[in-house]
């Protein structure tokens, strides 16, 4: 559904993403893992057009492959690439329903420009929003103002906003961040559920979740894709082990200096 060729992003002297070739198939769930600063969030920002790459291409499959490298975030969203955020990033004083409704409305062509019509005349977006809220388990919270939801519920809402407008590709950035272990089970359930009819690229630190839900696992280390395989194979891969545990004793590793992920904007580590 989406693929990159030689995707590279440099910030000054830092190469955050370094020549990544990656492809995500239809209805596939691929996890993207890697130590802090490996370039995961930057990679997301490149896919959604939030950042422009220094080199390389991003393509998206509609009927045929379309080059979306130069598209802005709203253009990629309209094509069907949606994302969630690592830190809850919704519309805080709007209700849960309005959060999803306004996101659904974005995909209604010129409807958002109909200044003279009351929102209530566009029931289809509200229906869609209600369905999505039901699907993510927030059906009882439609009228709750987003900022007053519990943290776990907010993480569900975060996914719900990304689901609005019927995307084909979902990029989920640490959906379980800061969620307690019992609430994680529900999120895992949700991720599995949405992966049935979406192509999902999941950034996740919780390895139990990753091993549990992924069809495939890709590992970024210092901006480079060092592994891309099924979960078990990735777990056994010595390069991956070293990336996580450090290559300090093992000399030869890491000729690539300075893969610092400046694009993350502070991870809640």
């Amino acid at each position, binding site marked *: 559904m989406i693929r990159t060729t030689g995707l590279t992003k440099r910030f000054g002297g830092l190469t955050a993403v370094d020549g990544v070739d990656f492809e995500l198939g239809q209805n596939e769930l691929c996890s993207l893992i890697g130590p802090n600063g490996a370039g995961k969030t930057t990679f997301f920002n490149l896919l*959604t057009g*939030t950042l422009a790459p220094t080199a390389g291409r991003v393509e998206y499959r509609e009927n045929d492959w379309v080059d979306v490298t130069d598209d*802005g*975030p*709203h253009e990629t*969203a*309209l094509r069907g690439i*949606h*994302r969630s*955020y690592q830190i809850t*990033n*919704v*519309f*805080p*004083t*709007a209700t849960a329903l*309005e959060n999803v*409704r*306004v*996101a659904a*409305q*974005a*995909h*209604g062509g010129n*409807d*958002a*420009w*109909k*200044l*003279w*019509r*009351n*929102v209530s005349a*566009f029931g289809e977006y509200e229906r869609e929003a209600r369905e999505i809220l039901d699907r993510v388990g927030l059906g009882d919270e439609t*009228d709750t103002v987003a900022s007053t939801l519990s943290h776990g519920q907010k993480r569900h809402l975060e996914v719900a*906003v990304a689901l*609005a*407008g019927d995307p084909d590709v979902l990029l989920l950035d640490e959906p379980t961040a800061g969620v307690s272990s019992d609430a994680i089970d529900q999120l895992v359930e949700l991720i599995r559920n949405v992966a049935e009819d979406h192509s999902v690229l999941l950034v996740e630190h919780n390895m139990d979740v990753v091993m549990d839900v992924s069809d495939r696992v890709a590992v970024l280390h210092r901006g480079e894709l060092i592994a891309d395989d099924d979960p078990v194979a990735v777990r056994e891969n010595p390069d991956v082990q070293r990336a996580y545990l450090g290559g300090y004793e093992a000399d030869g590793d890491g000729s690539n200096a300075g893969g610092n992920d400046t694009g993350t904007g502070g991870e809640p580590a």
Partner: protein
Amino acid sequence: MSEPTETSDAPAVTDRRGAYVRRVLADHAVHAAVVVAFALYPIVYTVLGQTPLGSEFEVFLPRVHAMVAVLYIGLFAMSFDFISGYTGYLSFGHALFYGSGAYLVVLTATDKVPLLGPDTPFMLLILVAGLVAVALALAVGAVSFRLSGVYFAMITLGFAEVAHVFIRNWDHVGSNPRDGASIGAAGDAFAVGVPGIDALQVGIGRLVGDEFGDVFGIGVEFGTAEVSYYAIGAVVLVCYLLMQRIIHSPFGRVMIAIRENEERARAVGYDVFRFKLAAFAISGFFAGVAGALFAGYRRTVAPGNTFDLFFTAEALLAAIVGGFGTLAGPLFGYLFNASVEGVLSTEPHGIARYLRDVLSESTLSAGAGGVTVADVINVLVDGRADLYLGIVFILFVLYVPRGILGTLRDRLGGHVADRLPERVRSRFRGRNE
């Protein structure tokens, strides 16, 4: 919390229609009440003025003439809130749009605008004023919306000041552009109403407008101020309803989404730049209309009460007191400010003059340490509205940041217009049950 369901036995169709009408009425009950209150105000003012406490009422209630200003400056404040309160972008140069609308009217009337003759119908002129403001807003916005926060405020202020300085020195305006331009009492009043049908139009203006004796045959006389009040009030009401309509449209929801979280609004698929620009243009339109109404009523414009930074500040003050992001709030906010100004005014209806008249000579000359009561009135009361408004303003920023209407909404848990009737209804039912 949900709408009460109708339980009438009438046939389904009539039931639905009846329910719809009742719902519309209920939804707009507060709107209607406010409109009626405003409509009755001149009559109430006259009636109260004739009571034994007449002179007290005249001190504390704004005169109808002042209420006309509440309407057009209130409209300006609402247009300011439309962009600043709903998208979060502080338009610090908003006076630019008001000023261009006002100058357009006066310059047209004095035959100084190409293509528009002095006899252009006022209703058309209002529209042109709005469109000129739209053009300016698109030009200013196209550049300014690349910035945000304080920088957006500053660049819009910069644009407005360029225009301010220009208009203050542009001798095309008049022989002394610093004093502005005036149409004078000569010539026809500007007519508000249905263009082309004289019977459905009235002239506005305090000195030149229409007046009616013995309206409805009940002995109530409408002077120029009252006639202008209703005519301008009608235009302001239409403008308010249009803005309210837009706020409640899908477009309005996008504006709010931008205010709440611009990054996310973009990520869900909105080209936020175009939405901000359009909202700015709409806001500019109504500011331009407000300026045109002002010029039509006062028939004179000056840089200081149109393009000035402190004129934008009037809107800011009104929005803070009334409530940012409430649309109607700024009108009430300005009503409050204008009332304070009226009470503390140096003019005959102000409280200073009243106190001097009412208090006895001995009270006035009483005092301690060489300071008499009369001195205190002169120094701390007479024309000191800015001092107290400044203090009120600071207190609002510190303790009532959501303003009057915003705080009311928070208390009621929704829009006043939606919630108030419901509250009343539920209380009423509660008592019956």
